[in-house]
């Protein structure tokens, strides 16, 4: 996955993401595609959560999956979650849950609860930082004011690590793939360098949906695992999602 929160010079916040999923889950030799990713694409749907006929949140779902991986609460926050691989992953948490230790939260459900109940960026950030989530992950948050954007690295054992926007010091975007921000990504899966290079080339002045979509259309940020690209703008409540195909030759991840 690649998630980006970016801020324009006048403080407008955009949040975009590529969702990549299906690694090693069946390879279609003939068509050179991941089987599960192919199966997931037709299941992508935008969901408008309504109470009393009014929108309370919007999210991108795979049909049948009730948790949230990408969502927006109009005027309040935007959220995405990127996968974090770890041997002490959710598998351990599932066993603990089955054995009756149920103090931790399931990632997708936590994301949805947090999104729907959000009242502002600061309290949502605190909630995410202090959450006990069953599996590790990268939760990327965007708010509705200048400087409100963060990557929060959650871990089952260690305290969360936070990296934030700081537009006054020139940090006008944060970009997260599937590796810890403090570590160098592995040479065989370095989507960070490409993404950061393209965002830097874009320049803050030019940031908007078009340039962000182009960054997320550049290989390897666009790859054979990419199921969809979602585009969000918190102040207008805009959420649009597009199904992606990576034309060959394309890297498998």
């Amino acid at each position, binding site marked *: 996955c690649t998630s980006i929160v970016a801020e324009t010079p006048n403080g407008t916040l955009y949040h975009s993401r590529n969702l990549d999923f299906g690694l090693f*889950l069946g390879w279609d030799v003939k068509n050179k595609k991941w089987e599960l990713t192919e199966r997931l694409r037709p299941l992508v*749907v935008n969901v408008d959560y309504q109470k009393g006929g009014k929108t309370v949140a919007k999210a991108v779902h795979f049909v049948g999956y009730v948790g949230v991986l990408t969502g927006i609460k109009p005027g309040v926050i935007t959220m995405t979650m990127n996968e974090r691989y770890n041997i002490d992953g959710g598998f351990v948490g599932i066993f603990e849950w089955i054995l009756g230790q149920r103090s931790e939260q399931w990632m997708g459900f936590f994301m949805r609860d947090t999104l729907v109940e959000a009242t502002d960026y600061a309290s949502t950030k605190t909630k995410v930082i202090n959450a006990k989530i069953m599996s590790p992950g990268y939760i990327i948050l965007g708010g509705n004011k200048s400087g409100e954007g963060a990557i929060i690295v959650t871990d089952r054992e260690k305290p969360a690590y936070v990296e934030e926007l700081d537009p006054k010091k020139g940090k006008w975007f944060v970009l997260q793939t599937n590796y810890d921000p403090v570590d160098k990504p592995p040479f065989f899966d370095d989507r960070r360098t490409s993404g950061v290079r393209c965002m830097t080339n874009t320049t803050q002045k030019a940031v908007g949906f078009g340039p962000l*979509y182009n960054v997320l259309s550049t290989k390897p940020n666009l790859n054979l695992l990419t199921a969809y690209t979602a585009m969000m703008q918190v102040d207008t409540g805009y959420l649009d999602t597009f199904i992606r195909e990576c034309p060959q030759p394309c*890297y498998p991840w």
Partner: protein
Amino acid sequence: QDAYPYTDRNCRTDVPYPPNDPKVSTFVLNLDLNPKDRWAPLMKNKTNELKAMIGDIINLVGAFFKNKTKIVNDLDTLLGPLVYTLPQPYQDEMIGISDASGVPLGQIVLYNIFYEVFTV
């Protein structure tokens, strides 16, 4: 990605916005409805796609075992009851999705906890 031609040499700037890629449709989830009924209208149109995707996961899991049918039955037996330990409204929403789609409850649970399983 350093190896040619997997990485675009230049950052793309030629994609229009909105793009020509297929746009995703929107479904209104009425939170005022009983959780068991919320997803039913969506399941009517997407059941075949959901079954195909879950079938792929089952095939993948089954590939590691001799008797695939037994594994499918075991998954349903093991994971089906797990739903009753999950928080609301997710518990009832999953039951509703299983009822509306005809996909066994254990398989719907497996799909919904796949992130937790897959991070390892």
